[in-house]
């Protein structure tokens, strides 16, 4: 078993009386695609927000390469190598695609507190941005305004922005939500491609996609881990079938 890049230990987040995430412990191993599935309200998104620092844990801890990062802010976690995408496209709608990816790429400069040197002189930022756009098949759309892209393309841009920060770990929150079959297929290919050499945590409702991409699957129900295993194990698990009562698992 390879080493865990990121580890949640007894992670809990309460909203009032509701424990949206309740004592979740999962180890995410380096270089693998680990999917989180579960019915609506299972706490998947809350869990992701805890990992990316957007929510504070009520108790428990998150460790990145063994270091405690439970209290770290989103910007610090990003700099430590955790990149994420959001359920709804979360872009800079007024900027061009290049502009969006540029901002992401520029975040890897040691500092952006540079006041007099024109930004375009930073060739390495431009290259990083161009690479990310290209990886996501958006090279031709660089000049287009992000807010005017199709929904599917916005998802691609979202992933391109995250790639431009060169993350070691990628958190993808329902990257296929709201996509048509063709678009979904394109994004699935994209995820497969970006997963090479990276660790990915994937929250997704599309079971077919999950089972085709993931190396490991964790099922969350009511804020707790129901089961973790290979896609094969999870697919055959009686408990999982029961949790998804009435829903079909392919």
């Amino acid at each position, binding site marked *: 078993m390879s080493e865990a890049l990121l580890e949640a230990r007894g992670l809990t987040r309460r909203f009032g009386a509701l424990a949206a995430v309740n004592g979740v412990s999962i180890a995410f191993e380096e270089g693998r695609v680990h999917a989180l599935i579960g019915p609506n309200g299972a706490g998947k998104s809350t869990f992701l927000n805890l990992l*990316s620092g*957007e929510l504070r844990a009520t108790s428990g801890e998150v460790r990145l390469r063994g270091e405690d990062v439970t209290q770290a*802010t*989103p*910007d*610090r976690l*990003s*700099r430590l190598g955790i990149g*994420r995408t959001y359920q709804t496209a*979360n*872009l*800079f*709608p*007024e*900027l061009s695609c290049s502009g969006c990816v*540029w*901002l*992401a790429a*520029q*975040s*890897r*400069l040691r500092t*952006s*507190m*540079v*006041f*007099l*040197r*024109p*930004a375009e002189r*930073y060739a390495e*930022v431009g290259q990083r941005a161009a690479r990310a756009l290209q990886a996501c098949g958006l090279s031709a759309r660089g000049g287009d305004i992000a807010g005017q892209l199709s929904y599917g393309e916005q998802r691609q841009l979202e992933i391109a*922005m995250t790639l431009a*920060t060169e993350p070691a770990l990628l958190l993808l929150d329902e990257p296929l939500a709201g996509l048509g079959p063709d678009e979904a297929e394109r994004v699935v290919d994209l995820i497969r491609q970006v997963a090479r050499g990276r660790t990915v945590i994937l929250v997704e409702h599309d079971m077919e996609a999950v089972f085709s991409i993931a190396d490991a699957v964790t099922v969350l129900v009511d804020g707790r881990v129901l089961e973790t295993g290979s896609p094969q194990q999870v697919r055959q698990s009686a408990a999982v079938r029961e949790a998804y009562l009435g829903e079909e698992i392919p």
Partner: protein
Amino acid sequence: MKGRVLLLAGAAALGAIAFSGDRFWLQFLGKAMIGCILAISLDLLVGFTGLVSLAHSAFFGLSAYALAGLTNGLGWSNPLVTLPLCLLAAAAAALLIGWLSLRATGVYFIMVTLAFTQMLFYLFNDAPALGGSDGLYVQDRPISSRTASYVLIWCALLLVYVLLSRILRAPYGRVLEGIRGNEQRMRSLGYPTRRYKLVAFVIASALAGLAGYLDATLYGFVNPAQLGWRQSGLVLVTVLLGGKGTLYGPALGALLLAFIEHYGERVTEHWNALIAALVIAVVLFLPRGLAGLFQRSARV
């Protein structure tokens, strides 16, 4: 580019006025250009960072009062000494006020800046040692020649414009644009956004302090009304009238308002109503302000 030529022509024309030696125009346009500096520095916050501050006049006034204090209290008037000290005073106050205010966002940020501004207003208004509601004379002005003051103001305006244009093209300026567009996303991309906003607040406020210093130098007089939030509100209106997020738009707005104020006063004592009507018309028909008249699809 045509826009750049127009700007240079306008700047040259303003500079040429210095040679006229005409008392009225030097005073009038000097004041108008101080308004330009105030407006374009506030544009850095309102137009480029998405931060609406009502504290801009506070830093203008603090710097002007600092000058009065330095000359009256210590007998220092040399601009090479007083100018840096007054800017430093404005920047230090901005660091503290900004650090506290930026814990709030959106409309709460506006309210907190308003509260600080009013605190300072009453401090200067009610303390006899600070001149009270009458204000203070700057007994020994750093520059007494009207022409020299005018040239200094003109240079300052050009410098501020060039400096802000440079900053906006640099990596830092891009970060501000990103914060305006989607601050939460900027955080998740690895930018500690509050720190960037604080620096913008300090830069803009120091430049407001520059405007205050020039104003006190030109008039030799400071009063608490210059510190009050109504002044901040007026600068904000100037920025919106001119077109936020363009730099040259707010400068244009400041010049226009100065002319309306001057000539409007002759037509009617209710010239403020003229400004109000203009603001309403611009908001309704020119959502991008006066700058919208010069833009086709050009983007900064």
